[in-house]
């Protein structure tokens, strides 16, 4: 495996169970290093490029592709178990008839989450990253070919459960959404500031459990604002539906594509 993690040479990325074509390997063994290099010693070449520029170019390509099809895209990032899939199920059940939603699911293994999304009533594509800890723009590019773009207004990319690695990778989304849940603790935004810093929206899920926890919503919101003063925060519950209408209404206000479909 090349661009992704690299910790496993035997790992492979699969989209809906089919192996995805990866970037080339850095195999330089075929080069002949025997000839002289006179007059070329120690030259400095200035590069000055973003390390992720290739990913970012592909992400921009994805973004333009989605824009052509009038699709608004969110990239959802959280720790495993924060309730991303349950929140999506709730949104699809409550609003799917008004707003055609498709989901790209990222997990290391299994298509359990894609099955849940399909059961809830939306189109889903599953990416299995194998050993990799995040999705990148190339995987999304491939997955987009399997989405019915004509039938989609809102595309949600559910990233691999991980609050660190996915943060660095632009996928071509319009909004980056961070999700934490009340049982994870009110100081989670301070413990994982890098995600919050790059996110546009924070969903605080499982607020229905707050009465049973040592969790102050007020403290959690204050901490989040200290990390990123511009972040939009919505306390929600996938279980009870609390807060979901406020998030949905705000979302609709963010894009003409979404507004025109209701």
């Amino acid at each position: 495996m090349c661009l992704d993690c690299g910790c496993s040479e035997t790992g492979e990325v699969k989209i809906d169970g089919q192996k995805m074509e990866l970037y080339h390997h850095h195999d330089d063994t075929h080069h002949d290093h025997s000839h002289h290099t006179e007059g070329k010693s120690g030259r400095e070449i200035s590069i000055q490029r973003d390390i992720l520029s290739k990913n970012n170019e592909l992400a921009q390509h994805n973004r333009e592709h989605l824009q052509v099809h009038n699709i608004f895209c969110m990239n959802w990032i959280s720790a495993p178990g924060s309730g991303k899939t349950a929140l999506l199920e709730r949104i699809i059940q409550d609003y799917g008839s008004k707003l055609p939603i498709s989901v790209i699911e990222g997990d290391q293994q299994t298509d359990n989450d894609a099955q849940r999304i399909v059961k809830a009533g939306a189109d889903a594509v599953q990416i299995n990253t194998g050993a990799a800890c995040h999705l990148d723009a190339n995987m999304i590019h491939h997955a987009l070919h399997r989405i019915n773009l004509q039938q989609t207004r809102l595309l949600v990319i559910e990233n691999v459960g991980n609050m660190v690695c996915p943060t660095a990778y632009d996928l071509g989304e319009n909004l980056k959404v961070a999700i934490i849940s009340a049982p994870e603790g009110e100081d989670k935004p301070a413990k994982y500031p890098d995600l919050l810093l790059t996110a546009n929206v924070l969903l605080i899920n499982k607020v229905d459990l707050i009465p049973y926890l040592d969790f102050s919503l007020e403290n959690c919101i204050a901490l989040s604002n200290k990390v990123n003063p511009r972040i939009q925060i919505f306390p929600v519950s996938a279980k009870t539906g609390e807060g979901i209408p406020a998030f949905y209404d705000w979302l609709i206000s963010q894009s003409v594509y979404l507004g025109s479909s209701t």
Partner: protein
Amino acid sequence: MHEVSIMMSILDLAIEQARENSAEKIQNISLEVGMKSGVVIDALEFAFEVVTKNSMAEGATLIIDSIPYRGECVVCGHQFVCDDFLVCDKCGNFGKIISGQELRIKSIEVD
């Protein structure tokens, strides 16, 4: 542990540039890494050794310029070094980021 994948992107860019300049060996690679880029420098250094094996950068030196996380207060304009909070250490108001998210390849030295 996305540092291995970040390092592969670095090597991709470095090798591409080295070949364009008809070089045969990369002697060193210079980077700028912000403290809030989400990348751990130790992990990056570890990944460098693994990823450069059997490539034209094998045995090269990795030079990392670490860029501090700094903000500028939106109210009083004071510039400050942040730990994790983007809060002005003078007046307590919120700030905007001025540095610390860099993830750039600056240059390479080749033979």
